[in-house]
């Protein structure tokens, strides 16, 4: 057994961020009280400590936000040159970089993810997303989307809680670069970095109404999706909600892009670099506590090396540090909410009930907050719920295969098609496998890589439309000419 080194606690200071006791809605460039006067609490999932009271937007507030966005689109934003629009986005990118530590600490407090992830992945990638899209604003005619791509108008965006600021950046940066104005609803459990982003918009002197942020739960999102003056809906979240949004939008002329769930296969061939693959498996399913739509939640390992890979994986999991997300040495933080913890608990119980073998490394979980240990299921059949349903937690289901054909068949045997991983030292095998996997993103000898230039999005029931890269611009542009 590899020994886990004992480290002294290395907590990040939270003094860098000021959290207000209550927040209003960000509409028309300023914070306003919700018309119904309702609010909800957001908590630190690692401690259950209450962080702030956040306004709950109702249909009237959403209407107000959409009007502000429409006004900003007609009077200001659509009249600006692409170059000037781009300069605002460059400003925002710089402001995010300048205030990176503040955002990282706030993200970890509100979401429960380890500070090293919010500091090294979420915030820098969010800033990079704005920087990348800033440069597109005056170059859209070079994007290969037809000779005269046009903005759509007002865009409604609904984002999840797993990467709160990063998902905001994935939504807002391309929408603004292509000339649209935005009403964004953050997830109800993680509204704080979006509200801090409103402050960044003010610092950037972004014209009032170009970005509006309405906090709330499902009803707020539904009001936004149903609003008749919204030209486009962009949604990231569960497949069930995505389908219901698609039904709501059906029969209107609203455009829609969906980034939904996944059940990615991470495929390990017998010629894979094993230690590297084990790191990739760990990153694939335990990054962000497995609360990642593209998580490598199904490990497909070639039968001849299965025992060795699982042994090494278990040894590696014994060294993972689970606990205080604010500690710089923490690998696995808190589950985002009690509801999510309940879902993970229910699905893992189903895994056991259906006959799979459950294993977790010995680890002490904090007394307060929402915690789930890294968990591996072996002896999993394709029909088991833990092999079919998205768990969205630190739970890996292990299946085996003998031939590449069998690996492809099993990998594709799900209604999802978001991502996949392939581990092999043989380049020709990687490329042939990549061709046959029905997934929008395929990582070879790596996993969970994201870049603003690289399109992300799914096949099948994982959604449609892409985010990032040249392809992501199409989601926010009217490029249609004839038929």
């Amino acid at each position, binding site marked *: 057994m590899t020994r886990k080194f004992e480290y002294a606690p290395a907590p990040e200071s939270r003094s860098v961020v000021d959290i207000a006791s209550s927040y209003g809605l960000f509409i028309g460039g300023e914070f306003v009280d919700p018309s119904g006067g309702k609010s909800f609490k957001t908590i630190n999932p690692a401690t259950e400590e209450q962080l702030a009271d956040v306004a709950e937007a109702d249909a009237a507030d959403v209407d107000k936000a959409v009007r502000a966005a429409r006004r900003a689109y007609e009077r200001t934003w659509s009249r600006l040159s692409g170059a000037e629009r781009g300069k605002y986005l460059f400003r925002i990118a710089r402001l995010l970089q300048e205030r990176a530590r503040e955002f990282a600490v706030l993200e970890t407090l509100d979401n429960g993810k380890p500070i090293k992830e919010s500091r090294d992945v979420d915030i820098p990638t969010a800033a*990079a997303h704005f920087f990348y899209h800033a440069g597109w604003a005056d170059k859209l005619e070079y994007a290969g989307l037809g000779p005269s791509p046009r903005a759509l108008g007002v865009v409604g965006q609904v984002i999840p809680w797993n990467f709160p600021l990063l998902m905001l950046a994935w939504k807002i940066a391309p929408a603004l670069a292509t000339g649209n104005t935005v009403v964004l609803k953050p997830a109800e459990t993680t509204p704080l970095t979006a509200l801090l982003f409103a402050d960044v918009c003010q610092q950037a002197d972004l014209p009032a109404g170009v970005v509006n942020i309405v906090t709330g739960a499902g009803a707020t999102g539904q009001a936004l999706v149903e609003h008749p003056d919204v030209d486009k809906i962009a949604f990231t979240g569960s497949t069930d909600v995505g389908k219901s949004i*698609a039904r709501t939008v059906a029969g209107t*002329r609203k455009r829609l892009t969906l980034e939904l769930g996944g059940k990615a296969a991470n495929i390990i061939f017998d010629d894979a670099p094993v230690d590297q693959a084990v790191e990739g498996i760990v990153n694939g399913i335990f990054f962000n506590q497995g609360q990642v739509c593209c998580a490598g939640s199904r490990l497909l390992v070639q039968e001849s090396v299965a025992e060795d890979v699982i042994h090494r994986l278990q040894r590696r999991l014994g060294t993972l540090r689970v606990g205080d997300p604010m500690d710089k040495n923490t690998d696995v933080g808190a589950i985002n909410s009690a509801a999510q913890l309940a879902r993970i608990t229910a699905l893992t119980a189903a895994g056991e009930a259906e006959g799979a073998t459950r294993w977790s490394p010995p680890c002490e979980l904090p007394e307060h907050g929402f915690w789930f240990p890294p968990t591996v299921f072996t002896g999993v059949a394709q029909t088991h719920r833990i092999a079919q349903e998205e768990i969205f937690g630190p739970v890996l289901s292990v299946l085996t295969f003998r031939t590449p054909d069998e690996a492809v068949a099993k990998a594709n045997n799900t209604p999802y098609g978001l991502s996949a991983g392939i581990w092999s030292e043989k380049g020709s095998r990687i490329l042939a496998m990549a061709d046959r996997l029905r997934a*929008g993103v395929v990582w070879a000898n*790596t996993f969970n890589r994201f870049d603003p*230039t690289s399109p*992300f999005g799914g096949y099948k029931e994982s959604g449609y439309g892409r985010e990032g890269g040249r*392809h992501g611009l199409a989601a926010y542009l009217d490029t249609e000419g*004839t*038929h």
Partner: protein
Amino acid sequence: MSRLEVRKTYKLYIGGAFPRSESGRSYEVMSSGRAPKFLANAAQGSRKDIRDAVVAARSAVKGWSGATAMGRGQVLYRVGEILEGRREQFVAEVASSEGLTRPQAAKVVDAAIDRWVWYAGWPDKLAQVLGNLNPVAGPYFDISAPEPTGVVGILAPQESSLLGLVSVIAPAIVSGNTVVVVASEDRPLPAISLAEVLATSDVPGGVVNIVTGRTAEVAPWLAAHRDVNAIDLAGATAVPWGELEAAAADTVKRVVRPAGTGTDAVEPDWFATPDLSRTRAFLETKTVWHPKGQ
């Protein structure tokens, strides 16, 4: 003495064969224009015919999407060649189906032939035009390329029985998708004659499947079918297209709405040179990350 013509029996086109509807039903097809006359009895396809057609389409995906891009281009060009050879037949059929004069119908047929030629040039350019290398900030070769979405359901335009039909089939199959087409309800005959062209043009059986019948009856089954990846509602002009789009939501289908504004659905001008919007609608983008190292 004039000779009595030998009439054609119009059937369905599924998996490269021409079966009758499993339901045994048919319906009367009349000519358009001031004095409608009887043209033929078309097969009235059923839910089961749609499902058979989807099975045929699914089984053809692997071969067609796995063919070389250049090969698909040659097959599409071949369709144009064979259609050209049957030009006179189609002029007569389009004239009676759409109530056009012969010169008007000839224009339609010529445009339909040229449309195949336009698309024949596309398969081996799509990946170059729609794909690219992504300059990610790290040691990775990162490439995005288009892939066909799979099986596409198509409600063919109701008015434009040949040019409109070709204009919705070609952009789906050009990239390797296979299709299940519900032909124009009142003008289905050119679609079945086109099937005869496809059957003799090296288009593998199952790549294009054509069902004639009542749009309102069969379209909901196609829209809700779990093994259909996308649906083109071009021909949903007399049925509530919003309901079909909603039925497609349960399987997260890619949907092409009919032209028009609001709930109104109209047919576009099929004579206009197409752009890539229909082709794109039935493509997925796959991004592959591969590390660079020693």
